[in-house]
């Protein structure tokens, strides 16, 4: 009887795990299978045609890269600052430290559409910008800030205590300890956090919906105000609302395959570091 329950437990949970893996394979498989028939060099190297419904997606790829690069530049310094405050400067104040951590979780769960709307108010209404790549990059940078900060914090906390002791034994000031010991030693955490964040940012639609992206008619931005970009996720989002046309469907699968390749490449790069940190943090 107890043996039977034990087997049933293993079977039932195993079915759950198998279902999850099947989901991933099914999703990735259907996109690769449908996308590959469309995907070739011309698809990623040519401009969109037919008001975006056919042709290639070159500018969409470039636009996405511009947004992601901006998000990187915005979030890297901000996240480093937040992580240093949480892990170093608040060392003597555990309550404040804990609250900052909870706040990061909370910020991470702010629905991304709200960032988009806040961006509409701040950039379009207050500053009078039209749609702008910079607005989109800043919003995406803010969106991934918690992810990047938490990755860096986890790494900072897992550094061996003796590094700090040795550094203060040498009489280094706190800034010197930070720049010559803490940050170089935890660079892996920052990099993997950034890669993971950027993987998320490259696929997000909602934050760029109102303040940054247009569907067609934008090339490379020439300025900041009124310089919208076209971007892969927004491209897919708009076309998906008009998906009954079979030629549009092919184009859609192709665009989805390109986006997914970009996202998976970024998250796979981050994966080894991420899994390792995770395991280390637990055994410590």
């Amino acid at each position, binding site marked *: 009887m107890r043996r039977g329950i034990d087997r049933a437990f293993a079977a039932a949970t*195993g079915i759950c795990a198998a279902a999850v893996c099947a989901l991933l394979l099914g999703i990735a498989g259907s996109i690769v299978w449908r996308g590959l028939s469309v995907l070739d060099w011309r698809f990623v190297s040519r401009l969109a045609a037919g008001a975006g419904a056919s042709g290639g997606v070159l500018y969409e790829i470039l636009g996405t890269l511009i947004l992601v690069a901006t998000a990187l530049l915005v979030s890297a310094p901000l996240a480093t600052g937040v992580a240093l405050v949480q892990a170093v400067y608040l060392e003597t104040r555990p309550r404040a430290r804990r609250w900052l951590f909870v706040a990061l979780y909370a*910020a991470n769960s702010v*629905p991304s559409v709200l960032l988009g709307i806040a961006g509409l108010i701040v950039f379009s209404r207050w500053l009078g910008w039209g749609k702008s790549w910079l607005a989109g990059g800043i919003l995406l940078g803010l969106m991934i800030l918690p992810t990047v900060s938490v990755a860096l914090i986890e790494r900072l906390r897992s550094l061996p205590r003796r590094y700090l002791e040795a550094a203060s034994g040498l009489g280094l000031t706190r800034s010197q300890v930070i720049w010559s010991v803490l940050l170089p030693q935890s660079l892996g955490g920052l990099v993997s956090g950034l890669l993971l964040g950027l993987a998320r940012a490259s696929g997000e*639609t909602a934050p760029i919906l109102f303040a940054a992206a247009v569907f067609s008619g934008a090339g490379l931005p020439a300025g900041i105000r009124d310089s919208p970009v076209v971007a892969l996720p927004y491209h897919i989002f708009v076309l998906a609302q008009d998906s009954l046309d079979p030629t549009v469907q092919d184009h859609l699968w192709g665009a989805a395959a390109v986006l997914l390749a970009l996202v998976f490449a970024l998250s796979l790069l981050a994966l080894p570091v991420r899994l390792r940190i995770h395991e280390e943090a637990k055994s410590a």
Partner: protein
Amino acid sequence: MREGRHRRLELTRVASLGFTAFAALAFLGMLVLFTVESLPVWRQAGLGYLFGKRWFFRVHEFGILPMVYGTLAVSAVALLVAAPLGVGTAFFTVEVLPRRARLAVKTAVELLAGIPSVIYGLLGVLLLRDFVVRLLAHWDPLSGDTLMTGGLLLAVMILPTVMTLADDALSGVSAAQRTAARALGLTRAETALRVAARQAFPGLASAVLLGLGRALGETIAVFLVIGRQDNQWPKRLLSMEPLASAGQTLTTKLGGSETFISYGDPLHWGAVMGLALVLFAVVGVVSVAGARLALREGGGA
């Protein structure tokens, strides 16, 4: 490293505190922003805004109850599917699988978490809609754009969140506890369900809460498959019928065209901003509760 020895201005410290203050201001500022911008509608409609069942912006009638219902309905469907599946998978990876295989499943889940919501939306449009029409044939849906479609899509999307956090919670239970339980003659299932699950309960609850927080706020994927039909207040709350028809959630309304066209009309704009405020508040409460539960167990912080 003692303070006071070097009283000079530390640039690193100032920059870090400044950046943190900026980030906090950006997120708290959103709350203030939505509150201030939505004032007109609270003045005009008061609590009727929350409990009104009709939204007709041309005659300045703003009630958000049907959208609140839509949000709760899709999230409930998502949780009913994703919570057992996610927690079940976590039990399997922690209690049954050997370490190496466990990493493989975790990798799959991390990748699943990375798939952009617009791609989930696209799959919903091209594949899930037809499936739901067949699934709900008994209730005769008008099209594949239903609350159920949105809910099922959300279930897949929050699955990684639930699974990863549940996995963290379960593997946080100390090995000594497990060994002791096994030594007392408990089977693997008994150890998992009576010892580990009880110990990890706050963590499991927080996994479900943070999954719920994600479901409540997800926009793009749901937008594409829910039909975006206003004023869908169900005649019977607890039946399958409303799930088999189109609807609207707080987020799909916000992502739609009214955010643009309400621009010139302060009251209409206020009503749209009210949606943002309500969404922010609900998601905020759920996620802070979830985060506090997760951190209580002496994990991260």
